[in-house]
Structures are given as structure tokens and as C-alpha cells.
């Protein structure tokens, strides 16, 4: 009888572990508090979300130099920063790839790309690849719109920038702009999660 009891407890404990593991693996969902970070920018300075005292939130974009989809969106990412940084939602770009696998994404290459394209937003290196797994980013580009609240930076939108990677002029739905506009207006985000093809993050 005692053995049976022990076994029962053991099974229950194991079950609990299994449950915890599956629950934690998927990254953030809408409504979760996003972690802050301290990552190196292309100007050599360390950048955290907490540095942006006046921000109402953030457009965090996992992106890189080497993915054709990320490249296709470079100008649109810059335009997002131009439009929303002054309104309280700056773009924070984070490069998540392992640069041993993708040397074209190393710090020197990031600096060169940012200079060539005239990026006005921070372009940070996820050195050690500790941040993107917490967010649950799987590809580049992958966007997280965060709203700053007293509880922390709350995830409000996850997904794509818009619905046409090929042609900015043929876009019908500007998902990120719609999300930030809704936040600024205090309205509900109609489409809080969208999807797009992207390059898998290189580990």
C-alpha cells in the first residue's frame, strides 16, 4: 500500500513537471510582460528599454542583414521609427542570429548596413542569444509591439509588419501601424497576431 502511495505521488509530481515544461516553451503571448534587456548597439553603447523614459511603448523587431525578407522590409522599418518614435513608440531592432553561422550579421556588418541605409533606430546584437528565446521569436523579421504600463512592458501585438513583403505600395493591411495607432488611441487592437514567412533564426 505504501509503495502504491509513493508511486502515485511520483506520477503526480512527474505530471506537474511535464506540464510546466510545455507551458514555458512557447515564448510570449498577448498580455505577457516582456523582459527588458541590456544589449550592445551599433554605436557601442548598451541599450535597455528602461533607457527610454518618455516612451509609451516599443516596436521591438527581431531582424538581420542576411534574410531577404528582413532586407525587403528595411525601409519600412525605418519609416515606422520615423512615424512613431516621436509619438512614443520607437523601433528597437534586435539581431538574433548566431554570427558564427551568419558572419554577414556580425557587429561590423550591422554597422555597415545601418550606415548605408541610414537607420535612425537602435540596432542591437542579441549576444549570447538569450533574449529572442524569451520573446519566442522564431524568424526574421518578427515584430513585438509592447505597451509600457506600471506592471511592465506588456506584449500587445506579435507578428508581421504588413501583408505584402514584395511591394510596399501594394500593401492592404499595415498590421504594426494599425496596432500602434490603436494603442495610441486607447482602442483595442483588431488583429493582435499575424504571421509571415521569414528566415529561421540561426543558432
Amino acid at each position, binding site marked *: 500500500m505504501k509503495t502504491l502511495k509513493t508511486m502515485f505521488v511520483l506520477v503526480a509530481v512527474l505530471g506537474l513537471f511535464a506540464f510546466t515544461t510545455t507551458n514555458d516553451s512557447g515564448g510570449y503571448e498577448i498580455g505577457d510582460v516582456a523582459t527588458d534587456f541590456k544589449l550592445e548597439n551599433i554605436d557601442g553603447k548598451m541599450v535597455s528599454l528602461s533607457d527610454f523614459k518618455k516612451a509609451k511603448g516599443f516596436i521591438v523587431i527581431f531582424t538581420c542583414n542576411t534574410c*531577404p525578407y528582413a532586407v525587403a522590409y528595411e525601409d519600412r522599418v525605418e519609416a515606422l521609427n520615423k512615424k512613431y518614435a516621436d509619438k512614443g513608440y520607437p523601433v528597437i531592432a534586435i539581431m538574433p542570429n548566431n554570427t558564427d553561422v551568419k558572419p554577414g550579421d556580425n557587429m561590423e556588418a550591422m554597422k555597415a548596413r545601418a550606415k548605408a541605409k541610414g537607420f535612425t533606430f537602435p540596432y542591437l546584437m542579441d549576444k549570447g542569444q538569450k533574449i529572442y528565446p524569451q520573446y519566442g521569436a*522564431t524568424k526574421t523579421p518578427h515584430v513585438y509591439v509592447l505597451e509600457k504600463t506600471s506592471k511592465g512592458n506588456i506584449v500587445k501585438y506579435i*507578428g508581421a509588419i504588413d501583408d*505584402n513583403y514584395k511591394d510596399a505600395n501594394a500593401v492592404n493591411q499595415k498590421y504594426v501601424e494599425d496596432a500602434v495607432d490603436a494603442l495610441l488611441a486607447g482602442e483595442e487592437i483588431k488583429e493582435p497576431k499575424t504571421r509571415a514567412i521569414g*528566415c*529561421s533564426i540561426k543558432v
Partner: protein
Amino acid sequence: MKPIILILIVFVFSCKEAPTEIVEVNETTEENSKSLELEINDYAGLEPYLNLKDDHVYVVNFWATWCAPCVKELPFFEQLGENYKDNNVKVVLISLDFPKDYESKLIPFIEKNKLQSKILVLDDPDMNSWIPKVNPDWEGAIPATLIYNKDKKQFYEQSFTYEELKTEVNKFLN
């Protein structure tokens, strides 16, 4: 008695291999001339290929020439298609290359690597509408693979080794 069995075995093996090789050569020539004409679809045009209800197991791989991990695993899909063709397994490679790269990159890639699998090209920029139709769990990263037959479907947002691929396909054969 023993030598006879041995001879029989040798005979069976050689019988199995010889014609395969000849067929292979013929197919290579055929496929090469065919691959010059890409079969380009939007999602509506592609969807039937993801829902065929015959006796085959379909291994559908989403890839692109610019996707390094995709290119790395392509030989395994080719190998699988060759080794499992007698098991009713068909490999379909769906390229997500950009239209501007069809002539300059995709066609040369197919020709250079002499790809034998069925190749389709998906050109549909409204990704948020079709990605969940392929699979509700797909975040959109490639490589991604769908294995299905008329009874079940399994989706994998991951890279494969040949052994892993074989293991998954075998689940559909038993």
C-alpha cells in the same frame, strides 16, 4: 542448399538494382527539360497539392534557395523520394523564392542540383492569410515540412536529418 540460397539472394539484389539505374537516367533527362518551366501558383492554386486523397504519403517541404538550412536538408528529401518511391511516398518541394529570383537563382539551382522531386513555386504575398491554412501552428519560419496521407497530417517547423525524416515518414507507412 546453402549456395543456392546465396545465389538467389545475389540474383534478387542485382535484379532490384539494375533496372532502377536505367530508369533513373531516363528520369533525369525528362525532369531536366521539365524543370525549365516553373509551376507557379498562388495559395489557392497550391492548396490541392496539400490535400490529395490518394494512396500516397506526401512529404511537402517549404524552402527557398536563399534559406541556408533549407538548402542543407534538400538532399535528404531527394534521397527520401528516391529510396521510398516503391513505398508510395512522393516528395513535393515548394519554393518560396522571390519572383525576381526565378530566372537568376531558382532555375539555375534546380538544374545544377538536378532535383528530381516535384517542384512547385508559391507566389502569394498575403502570407498571414495562407500560413494558418497550411497549419495553424506554423509561425512562418522555413524550413517547414508537411507530411500527410489521406488519413492524417503532421506539420514540422524544423530542419531534418535524413534519419529524422525517415523516422517520421515511417510513421505514415505503418
